[in-house]
């Protein structure tokens, strides 16, 4: 596994003058499955958004991906380098369908014509894997979608764009049990086939059903408290954040 895949060092992020991340550092290797754990408001989603380049956050520090300092890059260059963020609350874009959006991306990156049918073919394949109808790929992006449909649509986009680093911000919220398990399976298959890495923000362990994390990053109050192996996930699930945080503090002491 390559070490120079993703390294986050001293990442500070603030929104409207309030500092949310106070210097976060961690690494994710190529092909690795890492989970960001932490209570509500710990700053997990901010980590995810800041890596992608959400303009709401002012950031400093360093985020290196494939040897490049991505914090200096515009958002679209980060995406073209292979970073994908599955949004916690996907944004509505009236009048633009998923298919058209994906086609525009492909046309711009390939600098040439891409037919809608070609894009549609790929989406149909992916939709089959997700066990869904593709109707929502032909409707306005996220407009009038249920919570579950929005999340499935994020995965459809991911499968079409084929990223190297997939950041999943609460992919399981709004999904029913069956759909959650199915998405977990699809994510597993995509990783096996592409060798991508996952950085997963979640409160719900169901999405990990088919994914075995080898790293767990515990975040509290905008700081990384511990980086452990995947067994930390099970511990948190059993005892809760508070007890685990206390145990770690004792260890450190």
């Amino acid at each position: 596994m390559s070490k120079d895949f993703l390294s986050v060092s001293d990442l500070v992020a603030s929104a409207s003058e309030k500092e949310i991340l106070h210097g976060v550092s961690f690494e994710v290797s190529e092909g690795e499955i890492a989970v960001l754990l932490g209570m509500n408001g710990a700053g997990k989603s901010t980590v995810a958004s800041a890596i992608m380049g959400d303009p709401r956050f002012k950031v400093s520090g360093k985020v290196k991906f494939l040897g490049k300092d991505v914090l200096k890059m515009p958002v679209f260059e980060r995406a073209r380098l292979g970073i994908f963020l599955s949004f916690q609350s996907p944004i509505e874009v009236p009048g633009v369908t998923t298919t058209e959006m994906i086609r525009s991306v492909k046309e711009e990156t390939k600098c040439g014509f891409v037919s809608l049918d070609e894009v549609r073919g790929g989406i149909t394949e992916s939709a089959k894997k997700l066990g869904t109808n593709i109707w929502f790929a032909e409707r306005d992006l996220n407009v009038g979608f249920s919570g579950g449909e929005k999340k499935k649509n994020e995965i459809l986009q991911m499968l079409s764009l084929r990223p190297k680093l997939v950041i999943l911000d609460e992919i399981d919220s709004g999904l029913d049990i069956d759909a959650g398990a199915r998405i977990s399976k699809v994510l597993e298959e995509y990783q096996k086939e592409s060798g991508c890495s996952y950085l997963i923000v979640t409160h719900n362990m169901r999405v990990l059903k088919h994914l075995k994390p080898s790293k767990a990053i515990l975040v509290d109050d905008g700081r990384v408290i511990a980086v452990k192996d995947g067994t930390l996930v099970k511990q948190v699930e059993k005892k809760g954040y508070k007890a685990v945080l206390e145990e770690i503090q004792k260890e450190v002491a």
Partner: protein
Amino acid sequence: MKGLTKELVLELAKLKGEPKWVTDIRLKGVECWNKMPMPKFGPDLSGLNLDDIEPYIKPKSEMVSSWEEVPAYIRKTFDDLGIPEAEKKNLAGVGAQYDSEMVYLNLKREVEKQGVVYLPMGEAVKDAKYSKMIREHFMKLIPVDDHKFTALHAALWSGGSFIYVPKNTTVEIPIQSYYRLNAPGAGQFEHTLIIVDEGADFHFIEGCSAPKYNVANLHSGAVEVYIGKNAHMKFSTVESWSKNMYNLSTKRAIVEEGGTIEWVAGSFGSHITMIYPMAILNGEGAKCEYTGVTFASKGQIIDNGAKVVHVAPNTCSTIDTKALSKDDGVSVNRTLAKICPGAHGAKAYIDCKSLLLNPGAKAEAIPEVMVHCMNAEAAHEASVGRISEEALFYLMSRGLSEDKARALIVRGFTAEVSKELPVEYAMEMNNLIKMEIEGTA
């Protein structure tokens, strides 16, 4: 032209060899123009000096019905616009006007066999068979003294199209008239008269364009549409004027019982545009649907919208406008829904949305709703917004550059209009929007 005079229009009338009743309308136009005031609302028209406008420019060609016979330099203009190509593929008939006169008109034989009549307006007023019908309708829906520019139009009108669709006739594919204003400093005053008889169904496409010159041009056309009982008509327009144009046209439809008018309009270019297509819902259950998009960029004021007058009971209308403004461009959404006494159960809905593409751009919505009937419904919504930062971030996170992401959001904003247009025109409109965003229009 030094002033609009009787002598000038008599000379024009003589040149055209038209019947006296047409010349009488011209003379009334002169009289009204000289005594009527300029519009008391909307953009400042003081930059328009009629003395500098050439009122009539006859192309060096007679009207023909084969593109081979059209002079090469005119043919090239229409080739570049893709008109002969579109005619081959999916139009029932095509008419093409170059400056002041039609230079080409052709109707597919099978449509002619259905009884559909498609004539250049100038020929139609002389036609023994249709002259009576035309006299009963020509400048009746839009009276000469409607406003100062209808008076000007009445005095100087030249070119345009006459279409009659007989009872219960469905014309499967559209007819298109294309008006090209090519001479610098010229005026274009074409008149379109369409009569769709009871139970008929028809789609008309109007295309307009002009090349770029440094002097002011004037387009002051008129469109009169009569829609019979249970008839349906769609009137689509894609206008793409150069930015020296004053586009001051008048469009009006009257709809009888159970009939429908659908206006679909894309208005691009011009220095100043003032157009407000009106529908008079005259018979019970008549309908009007207006969908329009405008784009005002540097140095442009696009004052555009629609009007609906509900005369009969259970009539129904929707006005849906989308206005884009860029640089120092000004978009005005001017709309009116009037429900007359006795129009019981009428429903009117107006929705005006504006999108500002940069901080200096301006947009204004002026919806007017007048309800003179107790049991009628009218509502309007208006909004002015900017491109949302979070939508930009979302699209850019998928790999789209900021420019492309903006363009996609804008295209989405206008999607409701482009999906109402035939595919080639939707593509043309999307291309015009793209050129305006890139500043290459």
